[in-house]
C-alpha cells in the first residue's frame, strides 16, 4: 500500500481505489493519523465520528464518482446525526436531524463526510478568530490566521489533514482562506449549489463550494454537489455540465479582463507581482488580456454590510432558546429568556452584525440603507454583465495581502472587513469565482489568483485555473511538517 494517503488528491486516490490497491478505510485511518499528529497545532476539527466514517467506508460504492473519498465539512452544514454548531455556543450540543442537500449529494456520489470543521461564528469573519470554540492556525505559519470564515476548511486541506472540504462563501469565505492557505477554493454561481441545510448567514449571498488541493479535485467535488434542488427555491434549474471535461480545453482564445479598480494602491507588492505574473502565464498560453472597468465595485463593501447584516438579523432570530440551542439558566420570564439566551449564546461579531442589520431595516431607515444597497447591488451586477460582454474571465488578486497575524485585525472590524474587498462583489452580483495558488510572499505565505466567471461560467473558471495550475507548481508545495 502506498504510504501517506492523506497527501494525495481525490483523483490520485480514486485511481488507487479503483485498482483496489487501497480501501476507503485505509484513507480514513491515514487521515486519522494525520489529524492526530497535526491538528492539535492547527485546530481545524471541531468534531469527528471516525467509527461512523469507517462504517460508511465499509459500504462505499467505489464505482460512484467520489466512491470512498472522505470529505471534511464546514460546521455550517447539516450532516444527519452529527453536531452542527456553526462555530457558535448558541448551538452547543445541537445534533442535525437531516442532511443538507449538498451532503446528501456527496453521499450519493460515494463520498464519506468525515469531520466538522471550525469556522467564524455563523460564517461572520475573515480569520476564524470569531469561532466560539477555538483558534484555527494557518499551516504555513501558525502565528497567522487561516482566513475565514471557511478558515479551517482551507487549513485542513493545506495541512493534509483533509483530502478535500466543503466551505461556504458569503463575501469571500471560500476564496480568501483558500488564498491564505495555498489551496483551490471555488465559489459557484449563486443558485448552482443548493443552500438547503446550510445554516444561513446572508441568504441572498451564501453559496456552498469545494475547497481542494487541485483544480481537478474542485471539478470533481463541484460535479457532485451542483444541480437544481426543489427544496431551495433560489437554486438554478440549469443542466450541470461535465466539469472535468472542461479542464483540458486550454485558454487559447479566451479573453481575460483586468479590472482597473482592483489593482489599487494598498495591495501588497508581492501580491500584485504574483497576480500579474499569473496573468502573464495565461497570456503566454494564448489568452488575450485587456483592462476593464467595474466602476461600482467600490461601493461593494458598504452594500454588502447592509444587505448581509439585514438578512442575518432575520436569519439568526430563530436562535432564541425556545426549541433548540442555548437557553439561559432559570429565566425569569419569556423576555428574560430571549435576552439572556441570545446575550450568552452569540459572540461579539455576531451581535455587532445583528444590531447593524436590525438598524438598517428599522422604520425610517429602510430606504436610506437597505433600498439603496439593493440599488448598488443592481449596478454592480450590471458592471459584471457589461464586462462579460467583452471578456470570458476576470483576473484579480483574492486579497490585498497574504495571511495576517493572529490578533492583528481582531480589534479593528473595519480593517478586517477590507480583507474581502476583491471577493465581495462576486457575491453581490452572483457570479462565480475561484482562487488558485499563484505564488508566495517573502515570508513564504501563499498568494491567490482570483478568476471570476460569468453566471454559470464554472467551466470557464476551471479551464482557466487548470491551465494556470498545470504550468506552475505552487499547488504542490507543502506547508512545513505536512
Amino acid at each position: 500500500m502506498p504510504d501517506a494517503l492523506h497527501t494525495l488528491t481525490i483523483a490520485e486516490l480514486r485511481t488507487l481505489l479503483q485498482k483496489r490497491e487501497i480501501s476507503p478505510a485505509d484513507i480514513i485511518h491515514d487521515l486519522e493519523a494525520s489529524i492526530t499528529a497535526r491538528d492539535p497545532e492547527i485546530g481545524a476539527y471541531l468534531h469527528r465520528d471516525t467509527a461512523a466514517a469507517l462504517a460508511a467506508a465499509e459500504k462505499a460504492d467505489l464505482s460512484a464518482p467520489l466512491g470512498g473519498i472522505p470529505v471534511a465539512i464546514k460546521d455550517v452544514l447539516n450532516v444527519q446525526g452529527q453536531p452542527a454548531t456553526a462555530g457558535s455556543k448558541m448551538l452547543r450540543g445541537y445534533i442535525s436531524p437531516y442532511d443538507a442537500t449538498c451532503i446528501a449529494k456527496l453521499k450519493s456520489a460515494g463520498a464519506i463526510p468525515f469531520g466538522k470543521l471550525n469556522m467564524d461564528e455563523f460564517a461572520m469573519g475573515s480569520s476564524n478568530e470569531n469561532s466560539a470554540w477555538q483558534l484555527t492556525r494557518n499551516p504555513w505559519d501558525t502565528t497567522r490566521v487561516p482566513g475565514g470564515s471557511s478558515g479551517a476548511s482551507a487549513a485542513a486541506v493545506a495541512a493534509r489533514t483533509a483530502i478535500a472540504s466543503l466551505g461556504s462563501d458569503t463575501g469571500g469565505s471560500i476564496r480568501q482562506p483558500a488564498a491564505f492557505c495555498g489551496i483551490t477554493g471555488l465559489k459557484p454561481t449563486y443558485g448552482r449549489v443548493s443552500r438547503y441545510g446550510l445554516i444561513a448567514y446572508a441568504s441572498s449571498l451564501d453559496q456552498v463550494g469545494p475547497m481542494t488541493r487541485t483544480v481537478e479535485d474542485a471539478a470533481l467535488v463541484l460535479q457532485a454537489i451542483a444541480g437544481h434542488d426543489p427544496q431551495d427555491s433560489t437554486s438554478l434549474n440549469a443542466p450541470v455540465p461535465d466539469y472535468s471535461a472542461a479542464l483540458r480545453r486550454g485558454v487559447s482564445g479566451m479573453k481575460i479582463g483586468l479590472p482597473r479598480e482592483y489593482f489599487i494602491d494598498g495591495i501588497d507588492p508581492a501580491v500584485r507581482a504574483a497576480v500579474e505574473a499569473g496573468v502573464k502565464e495565461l497570456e503566454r498560453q494564448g489568452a488575450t488580456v485587456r483592462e476593464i472597468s467595474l466602476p461600482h465595485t467600490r461601493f461593494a463593501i458598504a452594500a454588502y454590510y447592509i444587505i448581509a447584516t439585514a438578512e442575518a438579523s432575520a436569519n439568526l432570530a430563530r436562535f432564541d432558546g425556545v426549541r433548540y440551542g442555548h437557553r439561559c439558566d432559570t429565566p425569569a420570564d419569556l423576555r428574560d429568556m430571549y435576552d439572556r439566551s441570545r446575550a450568552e449564546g452569540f459572540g461579539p461579531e455576531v451581535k455587532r452584525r445583528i444590531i447593524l442589520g436590525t438598524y438598517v431595516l428599522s422604520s425610517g431607515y429602510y430606504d436610506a440603507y437597505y433600498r439603496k444597497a439593493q440599488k448598488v447591488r443592481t449596478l454592480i451586477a450590471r458592471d459584471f454583465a457589461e464586462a462579460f460582454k467583452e471578456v470570458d474571465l476576470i483576473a484579480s488578486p483574492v486579497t490585498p495581502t497574504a495571511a495576517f497575524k493572529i490578533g492583528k485585525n481582531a480589534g479593528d472590524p473595519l480593517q478586517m472587513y477590507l480583507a474581502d474587498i476583491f471577493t465581495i462583489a462576486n457575491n453581490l452580483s452572483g457570479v462565480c469565482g475561484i482562487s488558485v495558488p499563484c505564488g508566495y510572499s517573502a515570508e513564504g505565505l501563499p498568494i491567490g489568483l482570483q478568476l471570476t466567471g460569468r453566471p454559470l461560467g464554472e467551466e470557464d473558471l476551471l479551464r482557466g485555473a487548470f491551465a494556470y495550475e498545470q504550468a506552475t507548481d505552487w499547488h504542490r508545495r507543502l506547508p512545513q511538517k505536512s
Partner: protein
Amino acid sequence: MPAVDYIVTIGLEVHCQLNTQSKMFCACPSQYGESPNTLTCPVCLGLPGALPVLNEGAIRRTILAGMMLGCSTPPVVKWDRKNYFYPDMPKNYQTTQFDLPLCLGGGVPLYDMNYPKDWQKKIARPGQVISLTRIHLEEDVAKSTHMGNGTAIDFNRAGTPLMEIVSEPEIETAEEAVAYLNSLRQILVYAGVSDADMEKGQMRCDVNISLRPHGQKDFGAKIELKNLNSVSAVRRAIHFETERQAEELDRGIKQVQSTRRWDDDRGETTLMRTKEDAHDYRYLPCPDLLPLHTNNMVTEISRSVPETPHARRARFVGVLGVSEYDAGVLCSEKSLADYFEEAAAGLSKPKAVANWIINDLLGQLGSRGMTLEQNPIPAAGIRALAEFVETGKINGGQAKEVFVAMFDTRKAPADIIREKGLEQLSDTGFLDEIITIVLADNADAVAKIKAGNDKAINALKGQVMKLSAGKANPAIVGEMLEKRLKD
C-alpha cells in the same frame, strides 16, 4: 352625547386558513386534530438551514378567492419577512406579503340574508359593498396552550397557509360587520378554498374600530379588537366597544391607538397594549423566495371561476323559478344549494323540490337538532319523491307520509310506496264503479251541482277518495266526475 352622535368606522382583518393538502412552505400535511408536533419537519420547525418552498395550491386558491371578490392580481408578487419575537413563531419572523400581495381591491357585497335575522328589516344600507384593500398569503403560527407552570407549543399548525383579507374602513355598524363576515364566508366556501368556519378557528377576525363626532373629518383613534372567536362575538364586541368609546368621549377622555382583548364570558374588552408598545416589524423581502410572475396563473384560473352565491341565487330565481326567499335559503350554504341542484336537475317543477327541501327536510333536521351533513336523505331520494308526485303516482298527502319514512328508514321512496301500497289508483274502470256508487248515494249533491253549485263536487271527490282508501288519483277522479255530471 349618546353613541348615535358619533360616526362609527369599522374595518375588518380576516385571517382564513386555506384547505390545501400541505403547508405553505413545506410538504407536511395541513391537518387539524392530530397529536401535537407530529406534523412537522425542519422547515416548519424553523431548524437551522431549512428553506421554504411556495405551495402553488395555496397561491392558486388565494387568486381564485380574489377573483370571486373582484380583486386584481399584480403581475409580480413577492413574500417578505415580518420580524418579531414570539414563541409560537419558529423563525421569529413570519413569511408574509408586504407591498406586493396576491390580490388588490375588490369588495364584499352585503346582501339582506347576510345580516343577523333580527336585523333584516332594519338594514340601513341595502346592497352595500364593502371595499377590500388587499388579500395576502402568509403562514400561520403554531398554537400555544398555557399550562399551569408554562406554555406548550404545538407546531402542527405552524406553516398552514393563511389568507389575510383586509377591508377598507367602510363598515358602520356591528350588523354590517356580521353581514360582511357571513357574505365573505359564503364566497370563500363557494370558491372551494376554505371551510372558513370561525368556530373551528379556520377563520379569525380582528376588528379595527374608531369613533368621531359628526362633522369631524379625521378618523378617531383606531382601537383594534382581538380574540373574537365567533360572528356573534364580533357583533357584541363592536356594540360594547362603540358604547365604551362613546361614553368615554362624552366624558372628554381622548382615545389612543391601542389593542383590546374581547372577553366573551364577561362581555367586555380590556386593554392589551397601546401604540407605544407597537412593534417595528422591519419588513425585509424574503431572500429565500423569488418574486412570482402571476400572469399565466391568473389567465388559467380565470377560465374556471365558480359561481358566486349571488349569481347562483339569481339563477335559481331566473332560470329555475324558485322564489327570492327560497333561493336565499338554498344558497346560504353551498352544500345545500348543491343538494338542491342535484335533486331538481331535469325536473319540470324545481320549485316543488325547493319546497320539499326548505319546508320538510330543513324542518325535520331542525326539529331533531341535526345538521345538513347528517341529512339521511340523498338528493336522489328527494328527486325520486318529487318525480312520483309530478307524474301522479302518489298524491301530496301520500308524499308527506313517504318523506317521513324516508327520513326515518333511509329507504328509497319507491320501496316505501310499494311496502305501504301507496300507489295511486288510475284504473278508470275501477274508479268508474266507485263513482257510480258515490253518485247514487249522493243524489242531493248531484242535484246541487247540476243547479250550478260547482263547489259540491269537492264533497263527491272526497267520497270517492274515501272509498278508494285514499289511493285514487285525485286529478283523474276530478276529471271523471266532471265528465259524468255534465252528461
